[in-house]
């Protein structure tokens, strides 16, 4: 197991050992190195998270009292639109498949870079352009987009949403959409063509598998959104009537198109984090992933089903096939349950190390479980009719997306040493976890109750009802705790800056990224180990634990 290390992957295609390139800002502008591009994605996405979080805090303070006057009604519409847009389009997705995937996937499969490095760089610049475009709506005379992050017709037509803000929203989304499509192409090509010898498909880390499936979903879903946005723009400016009743169009067609992208998008956002916490839980439990192939087939099943569930967002329109979408939506609970079972199975009888990263992964499990279970309620049309457009829906998807924030933090604490060469402070990380965990539950739980009591979403003011007010106050307190956890993260970066050298493998990791240096060299590897299981680095570092086929460990023990 330990005998041969060969410099087989040429870290420079032309045989140079050192990379002599530009430095400083020119290096940033001209880089095609997937690690630097991924780092640029990471920094930009975290900045978007902070901006979107600030919008959320303003929204919560506005709602802390029934007649809040922190912002005007028009500003409130802009804030909730841009909070959703920034978080979904500019933070969670790009962070998952742009930032960490960019840095980690090529290294996990032993590749020197992404398959198309210049296309990869273009993806980042389009994403950055999209961020600037969308946010610049705030600096226009009419303000930013104000029709909700879903852009429903006819609210988003030129009559109801005139002005540049809406067009900037469409333009920004077009740019980030193309960025995502190019990243999807790149990830597929990288996984299909640049794996190291011996890295068969069923030896790839679960994170890489999930990113592959995510990339396929991106390629299926994002072109639909792009087409819808072009149609919306045509309705607004060229006099077409695709989404308007007046000229023979169908407003609900926008919802079909949007959600045909929008529900796979939920899994485009979630699957990378599923993969992330799978690898993290296995590493900190010092065990292989329990049910490795089951995890992969569960991921593929989720992806397959995700294309047939879009209209569960449209139950109350009255024009969708309720039984089909209800059954398909409920079916997704099966592979998701398999994943939950396997995560627990991976920890079962393992030597669990409760690092900050592992705690964040546990926070992901708990919060996602709540979000997932309430999603099952919403998949049932009678329950959905009762709760549609209430705070119950807001609470459900905030449980889901806050779980993804736990996943993101887990990934950052886990891979920061590999990316930078330095560990983040564990004590501050654990404090951050508790603020985030308690804050998330305190923030979301009152929203479930508010929804059941009938409070509609997207309202800046509400009736003077003590019960509603108290629940809103509690939720706002939770949002403050989440804000504090974000501040702690920023403080942690400052405190830990180049302070705690990590070494190459601080967590005794399993996968190939822990075999190379921290940070990895240009084109990633000086040498590679033999790859004989899905844990090549573990196999190399622990030759006493011979890599065996699945199910053979107990036989060997006898």
């Amino acid at each position, binding site marked *: 197991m330990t005998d041969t290390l060969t410099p087989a992957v040429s870290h420079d295609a032309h045989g140079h050992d050192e990379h002599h390139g530009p430095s400083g800002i020119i290096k940033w502008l001209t880089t095609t190195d997937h690690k630097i591009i991924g780092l640029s994605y990471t920094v930009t996405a975290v900045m978007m998270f902070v901006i979107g979080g600030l919008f959320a805090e303003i929204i919560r303070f506005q709602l802390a009292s029934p007649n809040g006057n922190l912002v005007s009604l028009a500003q409130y519409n802009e804030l909730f639109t841009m909070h959703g847009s920034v978080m979904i389009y500019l933070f969670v997705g790009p962070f998952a498949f742009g930032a960490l995937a960019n840095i980690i996937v090529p290294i996990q499969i032993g590749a020197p870079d992404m398959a198309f490095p210049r296309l990869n760089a273009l993806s980042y610049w389009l994403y950055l352009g999209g961020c600037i475009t969308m946010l610049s709506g705030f600096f226009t005379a009419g303000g930013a987009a104000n029709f909700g992050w879903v852009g429903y017709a006819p609210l988003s037509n030129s009559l109801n949403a005139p002005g540049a803000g809406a067009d900037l929203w469409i333009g920004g989304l077009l740019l980030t959409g193309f960025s995502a499509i190019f990243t999807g192409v790149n990830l597929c090509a990288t996984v299909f063509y640049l794996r190291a010898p011996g890295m068969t498909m069923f030896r790839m880390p679960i994170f890489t598998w999930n990113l592959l499936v995510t990339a*396929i979903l991106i390629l299926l879903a994002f072109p639909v959104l792009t087409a819808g946005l072009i149609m919306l723009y045509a309705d607004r400016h060229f006099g077409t009537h695709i989404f308007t009743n007046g000229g023979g169009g169908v407003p609900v067609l926008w919802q079909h198109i949007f959600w045909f992208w929008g529900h796979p998008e939920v899994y485009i956002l979630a699957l990378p984090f599923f993969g992330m916490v799978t690898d993290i839980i296995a590493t900190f439990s010092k065990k292989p992933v329990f049910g490795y192939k089951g995890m992969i087939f569960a991921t593929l099943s989720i992806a397959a089903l995700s294309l047939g569930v879009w209209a569960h967002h449209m139950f109350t329109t009255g024009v969708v096939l309720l039984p089909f979408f209800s059954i398909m939506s409920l079916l997704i609970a099966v592979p998701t349950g398999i994943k939950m079972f396997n995560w627990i199975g991976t920890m079962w009888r393992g030597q669990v190390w409760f690092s900050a990263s592992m705690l964040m992964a546990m926070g992901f499990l708990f919060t996602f479980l709540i979000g997932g279970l309430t999603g099952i309620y919403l998949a049932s049309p009678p329950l959905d009719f009762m709760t549609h457009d209430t705070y119950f829906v807001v609470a459900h998807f905030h449980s889901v997306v806050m779980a993804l924030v736990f996943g993101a933090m887990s990934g950052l604490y886990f891979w920061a040493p590999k990316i930078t060469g330095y560990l983040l402070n564990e004590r501050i990380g654990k404090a951050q976890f508790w603020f985030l965990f308690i804050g998330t539950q305190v923030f979301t739980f009152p929203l479930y109750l508010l929804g059941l009591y009938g409070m509609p979403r997207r309202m800046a003011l509400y009736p003077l009802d003590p019960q509603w007010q108290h629940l809103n106050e509690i939720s706002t307190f939770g949002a403050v705790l989440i804000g504090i956890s974000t501040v702690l993260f920023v403080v942690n970066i400052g405190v830990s800056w180049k302070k705690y050298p990590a070494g190459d493998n601080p967590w005794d990791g399993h996968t190939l990224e822990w075999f190379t240096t921290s940070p990895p060299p240009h084109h990633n590897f000086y040498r590679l180990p033999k790859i004989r299981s899905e844990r090549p680095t573990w196999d190399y570092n622990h030759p006493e634990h011979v890599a065996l086929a699945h199910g053979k460990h107990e036989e060997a023990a006898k």
Partner: protein
Amino acid sequence: MKIEAKVLLALGLFFGAMCAVYWNWSLENAGGMMMFAGMLLCFLPGSYYYWWSRRIGTRPEDDKNATQEESAGFVGTFPGSSIFPFVLGFGAFFVVLSMVFGIWLLVPGLGLAFWAFMGGISEGRRGGKH
């Protein structure tokens, strides 16, 4: 490469079956059409990979017992730096702004895009900077 092909073909088959059930049951065209397109989008690369997998045999990355030496040599061209992605991204930014602030912004937008296309192609022919 067989597994890559099978994953895509299996997804395509599932989307096809789902499309048939949905379209016949709901008679709703937008969703049926999108599912049908999803099926084709899986079959297109899936059948390409399947075709190649039957011809090129087992690659080192598909071989469970492969050694690193088997893929030694030329991996591909990985340009260490290039300004043209930034130029093209900047051009696309102007093109999008032209949708909002005026058609004249297409001039710098398409100009930058043209420069990036020409520069990127010639850089690709040269092999790029490493």
